[in-house]
């Protein structure tokens, strides 16, 4: 399972406004943040957490295996490389608007280094009452109201919808084993398919709820994986953005949400998932079907 609660976490870009608020929220929820990095801000503290100028300096005093990258888009490639060079195993990239070329280099290099990438453009992931990584769910009172421990995993291309779906499940008494905002970009690290492969071996998960959108190939890829390898998991999916099917070339919401050359339509994705045996909810409220 992603995110061992004992794992030590570092935050790259820790002195940014959003990162400071995130650190406070994570510490309150029980996140094991040990240190942070912002070049030029070494020696400072954020919520009592020491800040270093580089990951190498940080590693002299700490041994994190998890990092959160929350730096400007143009600095993401170098920041991630620094983390990979120091043996990080799980890397959450929260930054938005990272050029695809940089994302692909990161993914290729992380694969070599044996590191799992979540994101870019992800709010993070949470194992309710165990640990949280990133800003997902926001402040602790909202996290506690939205997420409930249980046996259904939530995988979503939208950070906001990760919390919305979890909150909807919680309202109906269905708890979550893990919830992951996989990231809103066209090319991301851990995809639905890769995460479902991990969850297949996770004894704490019985069911998965997928939230998909127009654009990209994540849903089609999952469908072809599930057609080839039967899953023991109950999988429910909801896809938004049907109206985008008729508006080729127009981008809505996340970076990846665009239908081009007839590809990436919600219609096609829903059909592919249905053909692979996934329950696809036409209405959001139908997402509960078959879950307990």
């Amino acid at each position, binding site marked *: 399972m992603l995110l061992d609660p004992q794992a030590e976490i570092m935050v790259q870009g820790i002195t940014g406004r959003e990162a400071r608020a995130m650190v406070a929220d994570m510490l309150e929820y029980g996140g094991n943040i040990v240190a942070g990095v912002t070049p030029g801000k070494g020696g400072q503290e954020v919520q009592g957490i020491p800040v270093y100028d580089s990951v190498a300096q940080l590693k002299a005093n700490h041994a994190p295996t998890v990092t959160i990258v929350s730096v400007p888009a143009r600095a993401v490639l170098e920041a991630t490389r620094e983390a990979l060079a120091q043996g990080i195993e799980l890397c959450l990239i929260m930054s938005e608007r990272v050029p695809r070329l940089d994302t692909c280099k990161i993914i290729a290099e992380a694969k070599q280094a044996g590191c799992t990438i979540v994101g870019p453009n992800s709010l993070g992931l949470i194992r309710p009452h165990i640990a949280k990584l990133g800003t997902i769910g*926001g402040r602790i009172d909202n996290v506690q109201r939205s997420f409930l421990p249980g046996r259904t995993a939530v995988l979503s291309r939208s950070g906001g919808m990760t919390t919305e779906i979890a909150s909807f499940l919680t309202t109906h008494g269905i708890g979550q084993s893990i919830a992951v905002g996989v990231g809103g970009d066209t090319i991301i690290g851990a995809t639905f398919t890769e995460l479902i492969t991990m969850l297949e071996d996770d004894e704490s998960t019985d069911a998965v709820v997928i939230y998909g959108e127009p654009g*990209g190939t994540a849903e089609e890829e999952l469908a072809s994986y599930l057609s080839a390898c039967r899953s023991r998991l109950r999988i429910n999916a909801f896809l938004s953005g049907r109206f985008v099917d008729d508006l080729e070339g*127009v981008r809505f*919401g996340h970076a990846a949400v665009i239908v081009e050359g007839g590809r990436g339509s919600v219609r096609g994705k829903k059909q592919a998932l249905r053909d692979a045996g996934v329950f696809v909810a036409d209405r959001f409220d139908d997402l509960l079907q078959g879950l307990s």
Partner: protein
Amino acid sequence: MRLVEHQSRKLLSGYGIAFTDSVVVSTAAEAAAAARRIGGPVMVKAQVPFGGRAKAGAVRSAETAEAAAGEAEQLLGTDLRGVPVTSVSVESKVRFSRELYAGIAWDTTDKLPVALLSTGGGIDVELSDEHVARQTFDPSLGLAVGDSRGMAAKLGLGGRTLEAAATLLEQLANAFLETDAVLIEINPLVEQTDGELLGLDAHVEIEDDAMYRQQERLAPLGELASTNTGRPPTPLELEAARIDAMDHRGVAGRVVEFDGNLALLIGGGGASLTVFDAILDHGGKPANYCEVGGNPTPEKVAAVTELLLSKPGVSNLAVVMNVVNNTRADDIAAGVVAGVRQTGQEPADVISVFRVPGNREQEAHDILTAAGVPFCGREASLDECARLAVQRGDHAT
């Protein structure tokens, strides 16, 4: 950012790729002069940033300089798919023995750039297997010589053409990586009688999020036309974008206009799609798509609210967001209430649904209650709120 053809040609020529001679002109007289200089039959092509130009009537053939002037005259000053034609290119009509397609794109499954070569031609080259060679490559190293030759050989190319195709693919791959492209296509790419390859058209798209590091490289190409909506923006969309740009904090003003009567302020990225679908499902007619998120200021929310309500025929506003993590529900509430009042109307008469649970929802609840508007919490699902928005809007009119 999609470049127009002559910009794409210029950019790719810099990587060693050969194209037909082409002159860009903006009057019929210049077109005639260009055709005379080139000699023989020519093609006249509108320089508009979208594909399928032949189908749209943007590509014309002319036997003489006079005919070229006539075609240019017809194209210049017209609108093609809503885009005004301000320039055309005049180029020689070449003889060729075979038509190919070459391109580089991103393979989102393998998460790598992929080179494509086809003897089938056309944009749907990925569909037919026998006439298509695909090869992913390392984004740090580019396309290896052996791989590009292998692609050409797979399609049965030989001799001079095999080497020409292999070289062209390597050049395209270098261009793709260096320019932060998301798509490069040469279609058609023609094989001449001597075996050399010549591009007749080029299509380059540069990633918007990488423009910050491509400005210098693209500067010599001249002004870049933005075509993200596929049609020119409406005045309402432009004004919304201006409001959004007023303040860098949060998003409130990414508007796409529609024909209906129900104004929408919806967010974030995913929930806005969910709510728009649900409004349509329940028979509602959205006046706009407008995404809100990332914690915008109340002033920005007020300005965009006022703008959306100013659209003729709009009677109601629905504000629906997912459980917010970072955005402050009270700022949205204060902004919406102020924006409605700026139009001289009462919030209770205009707001059909307000649903923003999460961060500071109690404060939001209090602001709305004081304005006489019921507050919906997380217990009302996105779908339920869309239904309410449509139902209450119908009652109001």
